[in-house]
């Protein structure tokens, strides 16, 4: 069963007399454990689409199902609960909480969102920190680690709740080439290890080269779906 199903999805922003149609009736579906990217020029609607999948922004119309649940009509609280339960986020600027240590940042969703017991929390956080190669940095604060390390912590935080879906908006934009490559590999490795679906909004060709499915968006319309199989590129019009 698809982890994301979108049918005739529309997002329109209205500001006074101005109407902006950010997403104009797109249809797509994403299978579990896939590595997917949305690409397109600035203003094409990538981030808007990611925000809708992430339950941060409700669609204007259409049908959107994520992790087996229709999310179009969720209120503010239910949307927050849904995000905490099923979705992990990775941000361009890492967005770690500066007053918490690396360990505490990863622990945050378990403690403040899912309210796990302390012992289980500790075990799970250490498991994730170990998986992203940050087990020995747990007591450091975000200001004491590098950009690449911050993004590793952010990946651990996104995966710690056993999220079915990780949404990553330009996750490599603030990293140097070498670090970005390592982070992409890490995410792929995490996908393989935890069977989590990764969906990217990106301009980074290295991510595009590494994903299995690429959706191209232009002016809010989904133009192409490319499927990369073992380094071979194929394409279908959507």
């Amino acid at each position, binding site marked *: 069963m698809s982890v994301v199903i979108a049918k005739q999805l529309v997002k329109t922003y209205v500001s006074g007399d101005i109407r902006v149609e950010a997403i104009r009736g797109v249809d797509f579906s994403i299978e579990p454990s896939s590595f997917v990217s949305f690409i397109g020029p600035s203003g094409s609607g990538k981030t808007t689409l990611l925000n809708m999948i992430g339950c*941060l922004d409700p669609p204007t119309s259409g049908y959107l199902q994520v992790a087996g649940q229709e999310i179009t009509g969720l209120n503010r*609280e239910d949307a927050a609960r849904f995000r*905490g339960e099923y979705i992990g*986020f990775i941000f361009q600027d890492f967005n770690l909480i500066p007053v*918490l240590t690396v360990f505490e940042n990863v622990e945050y969703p378990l403690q*403040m969102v899912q309210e796990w017991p302390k012992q289980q929390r500790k075990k799970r956080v250490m498991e994730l920190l170990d998986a992203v190669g940050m087990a020995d940095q747990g007591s450091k604060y975000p200001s004491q680690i590098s950009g690449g390390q911050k993004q590793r912590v952010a990946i651990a935080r996104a995966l710690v709740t056993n999220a079915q879906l990780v949404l990553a908006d330009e996750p490599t934009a603030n990293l140097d080439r070498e670090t970005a490559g390592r982070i992409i590999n890490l995410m792929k490795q995490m996908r393989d290890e935890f069977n989590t679906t990764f969906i990217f909004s990106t301009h980074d060709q290295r991510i595009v080269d590494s994903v299995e499915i690429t959706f191209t968006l232009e002016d809010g319309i989904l133009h192409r779906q490319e499927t990369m199989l073992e380094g071979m590129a194929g394409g279908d019009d959507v």
Partner: protein
Amino acid sequence: MSNIFKLATRNLFRYKRRTLLTSMLITLGVVAVLLFISISGSFKALMVGQITDSMLGHIQIHKKGYLASIDSLPLNRNLSGKQLDKIIQVLSGEDGVEAYSMRIRLGAMFSNFTETTNIRLNAVTPTDEIKTAPLLTDRLLEGNKEGLIKQGEILIPELLAKGMKVKVGDAIVLVANNKDGSVNGQTFVVRGILEGISGPGGRDGVIHIDDAKSLLRIGTAEVSEVAIRLNDIDQLPTVFASLQKKLGSMKNKQGMPVFELHTWEKISPFFNIAKMIDLMTFFIKIMLVAIVLVSIMNVMVMAVYERINEIGTISAIGTLPNKILALFIVEGLLMGILGTTIGTVISLVSIAAMNVTQIRFDFGRQTGLLLSPTIGVADVVLVVAMVIAIAVIASLQPAWKASRMDPITALKHV
């Protein structure tokens, strides 16, 4: 909840200087209020104590209409024997009454054999008067304090003693009119000089009640007023209400009230000063509220503004709006608790230090009054609770704003 407290504490210490400055402001406000309450309360208690314990008592009972014409000390408005029996019966059954004293108040001519002047006198039964006004003997500047007064003796106010050049042991003559208008005179020996104090009766002389009866040729049980001392001044409203119900409601044959009852507050002008002190305390508390409200709100508004992106992040990863609300409220609460705790400690240490150093002050003609500031647990609890509550209220608006923030807008904020 402990997670929220941990995170809130970390956030407060993120901006150490700002947190410290705001807490110091709250501390200063708390210190100012607690010290003002303790010092003004001490002054008020001292003055009220002096007035009630050395002169007025806590409650006075007169015949209806006496107080309106008290300037002329009318003898024809004295309480009769039958009325006194009723008063004694009621007072004996009243638990809050510690003691009472029956007094005849009169005006007389005072002569030292070379000069003559007017004097207002309180005629008392010494044993009852000592119980009702225990500090009266403390006002004796000269003379024997033991037993207050005997028949044939007089205590005279210090101003009169100075003006008439009369000393302890001197003989003087009192001449007074009785209620029928006939004049009588009697010789007295000056037993002591009384310190004058502010308020009604504060510059009256004192004689034995039997001397007053003989001077005024009163053959029956008859007094001008009954002064009452309570076990605890805090019981004043309760006991007064009870006495008012039992005595104030009594009517004569014409259907008019027989007695009038007054608390010391209605009789002494110092009550207005006491009310003024209470009013000032109230306004100082208002200022404290304003200080706490403005400073905490300012800090919390800044805290929310500076952390918009962070609010977006925690909201995106699933933190419920009520937890975000709680997080910011707890920050305000902790800042309030920090400032209040330090302020309370400084205040209590300062009060203790003032008591150790024994600060004295002058009030009117009274000099060297000892300032003994004290503060009740209830006052401390009230101020602490008020500051903490205001800190929470001040955090509400910024916290609400943070909790209602749209995560997408917040995440875009740089």
